[in-house]
């Protein structure tokens, strides 16, 4: 029963909250969509937190997405033990990079008086959730080995069953407790996401890459103006 609530119901609540609140927040409080950078207040320690964390988390998340979208490709890659080892070690390396960044971020927020000034309760909640997530992830990778393969065989079908609106928790119910912690915490993160500064992920500035260099905006309709004056 507990498994069903945590693995079959919680994901839906989290995703619904995520969708409704992000959209509503963007429409009603678009001003609040900001990365709220504190680099201006503290410029040195910031580098050792922000940079490793962002690179680490991007690669780790990408790994999860590939495992979800292309399980067969992952399995055939892992068929060769050396390749499996390469994948696992790379994953652990980037996870540790993420953790190093995260620990530096939290330390900086705690020790620097100016950074502390702009740290809110929602920031602390995000740090707590992220710490649980990254530490449990590393623990799984180290102690429950070869996750890239069993992610593809257990997690991926379960996620697809959720998407198809017929949740089948039997794929994941037998997994060890630490894996369940990782899964449940992930959906807690998704649920809390829209209430925190994490929303900056949704406004990454990709159009910058293909927009024109300069931006000029006219408030006049110049052709109409000419006709009427």
């Amino acid at each position, binding site marked *: 029963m507990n498994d069903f609530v945590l693995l079959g119901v919680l994901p839906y609540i989290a995703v619904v909250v995520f969708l409704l609140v992000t959209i509503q927040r963007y429409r*009603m*409080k*678009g*001003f*609040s*969509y*900001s*990365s*709220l*950078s*504190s*680099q*201006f*207040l*503290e*410029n040195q320690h*910031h*580098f050792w937190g*922000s*940079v490793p964390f*962002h*690179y680490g988390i991007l690669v780790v998340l990408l790994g999860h997405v590939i495992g979800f979208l292309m399980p067969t490709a992952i399995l055939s890659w892992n068929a060769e033990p050396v390749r499996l080892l390469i994948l696992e070690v790379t994953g652990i390396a980037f996870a540790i990079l993420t953790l190093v960044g995260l620990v530096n971020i939290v330390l900086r927020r705690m020790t620097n*008086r*100016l950074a*502390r*000034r*702009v740290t*809110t309760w*929602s920031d602390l909640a995000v740090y707590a959730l992220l710490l649980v997530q990254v530490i449990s992830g590393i623990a799984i990778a180290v102690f429950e080995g070869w996750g890239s393969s069993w992610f593809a065989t257990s997690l991926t079908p379960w996620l697809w069953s959720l998407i198809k609106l017929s949740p089948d928790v039997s794929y994941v119910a037998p997994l060890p407790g630490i894996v369940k912690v990782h899964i449940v915490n992930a959906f807690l993160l998704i649920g809390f996401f829209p*209430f*925190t*500064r994490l929303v*900056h992920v949704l*406004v990454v*500035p990709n*159009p*910058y*890459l293909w*927009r024109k*260099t*300069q*931006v*000029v*905006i*006219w*408030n*006049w*309709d*110049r*052709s*109409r*103006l*000419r006709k*009427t*004056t």
Partner: protein
Amino acid sequence: MVFHLDKCIGCHTCSIACKNVWTDREGTEYMWWNNVETKPGTGYPTKWENQEEYKGGWKKNGDKLELRSTSKKKIIPNIFHNPSMPSMDDYYEPWTYKYDELFNAPEGDDQPVARPVSMITGEPMDIEAGPNWDDDLGGSPVYAANDPNMDVLSEPERKQMLAIERMVMFYLPRICNHCLNPSCVASCPSGAMYKRGEDGIVLINQDRCRAWRSCVSACPYKKTYYNWSTGKSEKCILCFPRLESGQAPACFHSCVGRIRYLGNVLYDADQIEQAARSPDGELVEAHRKMVLDPNDPEVIAAARASGIPDGVIESAQKSPVFRFVKDWKLALPLHVEYRTFPMLFYVPPLLPVMSQTEGDVVRSDVDDLFADIEKTRAPIAYLGKLFAAGNDGKVRYALRKQLAVRIWRRHVTVGDIDEETAKRALVEAECTPEEADAIFKLTSLATFDDRFVIPPFQREMAMEMITDPHEHRSSAGFGFREAPTRS
């Protein structure tokens, strides 16, 4: 915009007017959209002209123009941590005093004092530096000696400048230059920054700014500021709400020395890219070339064809900026080598010798107020580095003409200089008596309406009128449509 540096008295009234109107809010305490620096000096933020460190503006890479800081190529590494962003240490930590303790302190043997407290944390703090810490050359061995513009001077020249530091200085009031080729706009990953077509004002859309901080390092003049509280960058808005109702911006309006001139110019935007690729020495000329003569029938026809209303063309014809920059060639752009084409021009200061030291005695009864411009105490190379990208001839021309106007007016009003000498000075400065009188009039006698020629803003035609005019009623005064709180 034109600032006449020979008239600036360094009173900071402009800064205070701006501060009270726009930046008296949490997160903006440290911002001075308008500040006045003493030159030589390191300015605000400290050493802002050092682009090796801050990577502001554009650089020429072969025939291509590139942002020094966050270009499209560097967006991914720079977005997590901007390596060339100034931090609060490079500005100063704003503070206030606990004034109530002066009144509420319990009776005791000691005088109560008002302790300084940080405006960020609210905790007591030791004040180490502030804006204008080097006002009037205070602490010049630290500040003036580190002025990045002194690099162009030879060792003897540097020594000479510092040895007479107590006498050589001038003020440099600075606001956003509302550049033609703004590097802040070009660097904004969110596309939140834009230049308004009608008036060229460069603005940041507060709703679209996501605190990627690129503009702060990309602006070579360090005139975009990061609001640490709201997580948005802010900058001088040239008081556009005042302009739109026909008033001069607060800093212009309040200027005691009446050094500030405002007017629109017509320019050819198609030339910007080519002009920005000119060699350093030709940048001033390329910049000037883009400003078109609003009395030229061809220009008028072209302006009409591109939909510029007659009212705007008429005000361009009356613009004091056009006269100073193009007609008289007296006003020069600040650090045009950053290739952003600043639209704020400075008339370089003449700095006439008013006194001389002989041993320990200071003599202020100098006969010859109109000495040779080559003998001005600020070396021309220094002014050339500031206002002409090293092309000293442009500075020399502007100084010589200013001097000729003084000689001519001395002849007209006092009469102790004969007409022949005065006319010779004019000819040498490529100036005529009529032009000299016009320069004199606009410099010394200009009225409010002569100094500020504000074009009609056609508010009734602006598409903003489609939105509800009551939307901003009782808001925070800076375009927040919701309480500016963090979440």
